[in-house]
């Protein structure tokens, strides 16, 4: 049985990733990104209701009262604990603006809902208010991006140092490219599904950076080891053999990680816990993309760059 050749077929993988990212880019240009209230600034009020309410009607009434753009949605969430857990209907009111609602405006929202006959429970312990000035949201976003940048640089330095046998720096650059690939895929999925970006997403993307680089390093580690043992073989062969040798480890680790994250997703989806659901969903995407980029992209890219450079060298030598 001839084994699948990862190196020879690299063009396929590069194309798949390229096309996918291109689709995401186009979608982004068409749809734009949805920023959660925590990034845009504004106020989010969650008010418990006795029964299902018409969210759109509430939005219209509130817009008239507040004279501001209002987004509403109805969520069924789980509340209470052990044994007594029950479904709760929450009306969520998002007002995105430069300044959060004043206490008077918050009261106006409550009064309007009561006046318009919505079955709201104003003294429910489940009610929540979140107000954020846009500067705080921008800061969270900025800090997240900064964390991605700093992590990438530190990882670059560490990988360049530890894998000097793979001409360190270029290996490190390829590892970081694979990593940014995963970030881009996660961003893309959010754009494609029109999910709102929030701080939970930032946490997820940073986790995936840690996870994806992990996978890449295991493959690199094999290349490093095999390069010593198989000195006579071509680099392409070494890369291919190394990917194959680490494949069952990669599959097992991905499966166990996916298993735990998927369980978290199923549990939070079944009970409609928004924050955990978003978190585990982005981890699932990142996990898959991370494995893909480690197996198909990172080492192949490194080998490809190396070939190009060698060609350039021999060309200039002539």
């Amino acid at each position, binding site marked *: 049985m001839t084994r699948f050749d990862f190196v020879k077929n690299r063009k396929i993988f590069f194309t798949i990733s390229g096309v996918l990212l291109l689709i995401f880019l186009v979608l982004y240009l068409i749809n734009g990104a949805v920023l959660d209230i925590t990034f845009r600034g504004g106020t989010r009020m*969650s008010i418990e209701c006795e029964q299902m309410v018409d969210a759109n009607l509430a939005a219209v009434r509130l817009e008239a009262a507040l004279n501001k753009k209002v987004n509403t949605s109805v969520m069924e*969430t*789980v*509340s*209470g*604990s052990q044994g007594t857990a029950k479904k709760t209907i929450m009306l969520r009111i998002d007002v995105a603006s430069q300044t*959060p609602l004043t*206490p008077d405006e918050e009261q106006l929202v409550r009064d309007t809902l009561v006046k318009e006959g919505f079955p709201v429970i104003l*003294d429910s*312990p*489940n*009610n*929540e*208010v*979140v*107000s*954020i*000035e846009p500067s*705080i949201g921008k800061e*969270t976003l900025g*800090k997240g991006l*900064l*964390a991605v940048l*700093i992590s990438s640089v*530190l*990882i670059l330095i*560490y990988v360049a140092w530890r894998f000097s046998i793979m001409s360190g720096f270029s290996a490190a650059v390829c590892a970081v490219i694979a990593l940014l690939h995963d970030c881009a895929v996660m961003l893309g999925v959010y754009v494609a599904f029109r999910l709102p970006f929030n*701080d*939970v997403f*930032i*946490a997820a993307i*940073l*986790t995936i950076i*840690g*996870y994806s*680089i*992990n996978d890449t*390093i*295991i493959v690199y*580690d094999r290349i490093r080891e095999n390069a010593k043992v198989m000195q006579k073989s071509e680099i392409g062969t070494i890369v291919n053999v190394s990917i194959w040798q680490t494949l069952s*480890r990669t599959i097992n*680790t991905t*499966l*166990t*990680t*996916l*298993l*735990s*994250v998927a*369980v*978290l997703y*199923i*549990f*939070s989806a079944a*009970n409609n*816990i928004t924050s*955990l659901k978003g*978190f*585990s969903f982005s*981890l699932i995407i990142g996990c898959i993309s991370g494995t893909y980029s480690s197996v198909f992209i990172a080492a192949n890219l490194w080998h490809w760059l190396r070939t190009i450079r060698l060609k350039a060298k021999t060309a200039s030598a002539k």
Partner: protein
Amino acid sequence: MKDNRAFKFFAMLVIIALLCCLAFFGLGPENARIIKGANEIRTGIDIRGGISAIMVPDYPEGTQGRNVAEDLASARSIMELRLDAQGIFDKSINVDATNNRIIIDIPWAQNETEFDPRKALNELGSTGRLTFREVSDADAMLPLDQIPATGNIILDGEDMKTASQSQNPETGYYNVDLELKESGIEKFAEATGRLVGHYIGIFIDDKCISCPRVNSRINTTKFYIEGSFTLEEAKALADKIRFGALPVALRPVSVDAISAQLGQGALDIAIKAGIVAFVLICLYMIVYYRLPGVLASLALSALVALQILFLANTGVSITLPGIGGIILSMGMGVDANVIIFERIKEELRSGKTIRASVEAGFKRAFVAIMDSNVTTIIVAVVLYILGTGPVKGFGVTLGLGVLLSFITAVFFTKTLLKSVSAFGFARNRKFYGVREGGAEA
């Protein structure tokens, strides 16, 4: 030699069992815990419910030359005292010195239903500028909250040193004892000398909290307000005077009021998800790797137990993303074991003995595990330093999980694997997921 290994194996089992028991039940009597268990892990605001707010200093326009960091630090300690005075002890107030602001988390008190977080924060952040002012005899007859703050200022908060209460042995009522700084003596002596028989009002902002009549000229640092105070009244007044003044007003720019019940529901579900994920991972490992899989499951229990013990005993608050971090690090904790077992399998296939394969497998896997773990720890540290709130908590649990998984994989799994060969059955290659004969299939 053989007995030694068997002993080691059982010793490891006992250690793991002890760790698990400790993690579940803790150690020590209820009021003086030596080691805290799983139930005593602090939960973050997003699980317990409460207010999480960011407050920034609100200097009046044209203010110059204030040391902002110093102002915030003293504002923080005053706010802590104000909350302590209300019986709210389990809060956290932190000064974010780089961004000049205060981050404050206050959990709901038990059974709290009616609570307006904005109002509470506005009160908490109000400067409460303390002043002693002249009050005309006519105004002094008004109810306290109607006395206008219009008279000349005699003293302000900067001149006050402290305030407390003490019982008057003759009447049985309480006095409020005040102490001035040296800076205030002269001003106060002059005013009290002039105003004997008249009134001085003590104001916080423009609200009068006390309006005593001056009985005699006061030219010492210590004096008292006499009246028919009960202990509570005297203490409340002393507290107001003592904690009265923040150096600067604080304005909440971000307020999260989080419902406790929703958080608790989410926590229960996250825990259930964690247990199911743990069982599934163990099953997968056992089915795929056989005997080593069983041992890895034991090591994984030790990992989870250690993680719980660490979180419970350091007082790190665990948040929802933090729980995600634990579940994820469980998945990743398996990784170290997977790398080792894959290596051992390879060595076995190349025809080595089980003992030699275990030895070589660990040695070769070590570098790979270390390199991959270091990079994940880099990310966790960056998250911890840059992140706020939940992201920080996530950094802690992720970093801790990776670190502990490294320790459990290279210590627990290794010792278990090496010592289990004391038992005859464990020397059968079948139990390692490799077919008899050793040649590659």
